[in-house]
């Protein structure tokens, strides 16, 4: 979509990096997107390819193998990789973005040196394990337990809806080290080959098909103290800090996904003919497209402004919650209308907008539900 609104947030380095991401999406994702979505997985090798091209972890510290960029380099990657046509692939590649922050923010330098470089090089897959069969948004209800046993902890419990969980080599797991609802939570790094850890099943989803999602079982998994991230009880605060970046990237995915659907719908409307002219010449369709373009820009404006606050180190929890909810609504509406413009073809699996419409359904649920976002916003209003 052509727009000149947003120049201020992006400099030459973002523009040049955008070209790199666009090339990667065009060459490495787009030719296989449908195959991977239908197969329910993308090749593991893509992580290393993405790392080599520098698009896997643009805004992670260079010292650990990241790109050394800022929040907006991360946004550029999120936007451009989506253009490859497989949301599942984007979020699968992106799971390190939620799995590693507790290690970066709370871990010792030894832990960072041990766990982060292989993931940022695309050699290992990282996943974040918070949600449980019995608890989602109410994180204080986490029941997975870590019991101290000499120099180890024994972790028991179950986790579910874990993005990249089927293939993950290391999992940042939130577990309970005491009964205090908030102060009793601690992060541990569980490694794939630790006895007692198993993938219970791979879950089938509405969208995000190319991304593997798992239910995981922990049966007295022996985890050395060296794998505990931060002191006991530090997990809840770390998780709250983590959410800001996760929600921002989901907001970015919302407008990126909407823009892909819009571009498809616009191109289709300009070539599909009905009653002797292209459907783009009917006011019903033209006005739909005008509204979609306006919605996308409103979502970008709010998300970029929230990101700029984060970039400046200012608190942005409320702004990001608003951006995420707005982006999710925009993605929902724009994808819905894109399918409508495609008509019968939009309901077919072979049309790109059908996939995007399914993918959009995740956005008001993942990373904190729409309702939780509104609670955060309402608290900010003092009500």
């Amino acid at each position, binding site marked *: 979509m052509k727009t000149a609104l947003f120049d201020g947030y992006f400099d030459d*380095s973002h523009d*040049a*990096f955008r070209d*790199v991401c666009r090339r*990667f999406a065009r060459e490495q994702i787009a030719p296989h997107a449908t195959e991977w979505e239908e197969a329910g997985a993308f090749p593991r090798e893509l992580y290393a390819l993405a790392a*080599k091209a*520098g698009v896997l972890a643009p805004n992670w510290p*260079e010292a650990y193998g990241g*790109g050394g960029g800022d929040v907006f380099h991360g946004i550029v990657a999120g936007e451009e990789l989506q253009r490859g046509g497989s949301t599942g692939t984007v979020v699968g590649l992106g799971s390190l973005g939620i799995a590693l922050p507790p290690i970066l923010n709370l871990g010792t330098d030894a832990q960072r040196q041990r766990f982060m470089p292989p993931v940022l090089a695309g050699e290992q897959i990282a996943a974040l394990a918070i949600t449980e069969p019995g608890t989602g948004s109410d994180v204080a209800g986490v029941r997975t337990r870590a019991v101290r046993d000499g120099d180890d902890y024994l972790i028991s419990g179950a986790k579910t809806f874990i993005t990249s969980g089927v293939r993950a080599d290391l999992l940042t797991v939130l577990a309970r080290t005491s009964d205090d609802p908030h102060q009793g939570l601690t992060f541990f790094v569980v490694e794939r080959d630790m006895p007692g850890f198993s993938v219970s099943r791979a879950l089938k989803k509405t969208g995000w098909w190319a991304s593997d999602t798992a239910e995981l079982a922990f049966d007295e998994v022996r985890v050395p103290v060296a794998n505990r991230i931060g002191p006991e009880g530090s997990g809840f605060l770390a998780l709250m800090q983590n959410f800001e970046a996760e929600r921002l990237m989901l907001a970015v995915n919302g407008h990126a996904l909407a823009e892909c659907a819009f571009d498809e719908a616009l191109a289709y409307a300009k070539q599909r003919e009905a009653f002797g002219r292209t459907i783009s010449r009917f006011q019903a369709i033209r006005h739909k497209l005008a509204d979609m373009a306006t919605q996308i820009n409103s979502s970008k404006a709010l998300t970029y402004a929230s990101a700029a606050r984060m970039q400046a180190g200012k608190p942005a929890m409320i702004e990001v919650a608003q951006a995420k909810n707005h982006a999710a609504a925009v993605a929902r509406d724009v994808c819905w209308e894109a399918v409508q413009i495609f008509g019968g073809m939009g309901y077919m699996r072979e049309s790109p907008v059908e996939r995007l419409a399914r993918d959009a359904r995740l956005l008001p649920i993942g990373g904190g539900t729409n309702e939780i976002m509104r609670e955060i916003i309402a608290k900010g209003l003092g009500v």
Partner: protein
Amino acid sequence: MNIGVCAKISPHADARIKIKSDGSGVDTKGEKLVVGDYDEYAVEEAIRTKEAHKGAVTAFTVGATSDEKLVRSGALALGVDKAVLISDDAAVNAGPLGTAKLLAAAIKEAGCEIVFTGKAATDDGNSQVSAMIAELLGWAQVSQVTKFAIEGTSFTATRAMDAGVLQIVSGSLPVVITCEDGLNDPRYPKLPDIMKAKRKPLSKIGAGDLGLADVAATSSESNFAPPPPRPASRIIEGDAASAAQELVRLLREEAKVI
């Protein structure tokens, strides 16, 4: 080794080429500009040569002052060490020979032992400048190179000739190597390098700085026009045998190509 590479900033190969309203050339306004397609191979080969034999790479560009951004992202971010952008009015209006004179003078001043160039520019596709640089410097030139290696002060280059014939050329430095599609697989710039490229040395100079007074084009170009639109295709109906017969008839009698 002191390595040079010439890189012209041109419209992206996917760009929809527009002709200026007076027909005097291609209108690049609003187009996405990049280091030319063949020049990308030249940049990559220059960097690989540096990686294999040590030394430094200098990029040389004749173009607008606004090309700086693209020289940084398309050459310096990939591993080129410094750049010379020849960008005064005289340079911008130089024809192929004038451009070659400017580049040859800059290359000489930089003391390069080898220079890589692309086979042709993406925009005008003249393929003249590389040979002219070699001539002006009194160096050898190998064109359409698909494989290249240096050992000591000698080089071996494989040329792709017509009909799949390969020619292997050996010689000694200095030399101008003109790069063909398939010579290498150009790398992606890494984000840290994109950011470091902002601070790499890039000097903007003019024809006068190189002691060249007259680089004006010796020929002029006019009457640019888009290619005629393709006529609608025809579908020949019928079974394979009769359709083939009809196709042959049409090719012979209407198209007159067989």
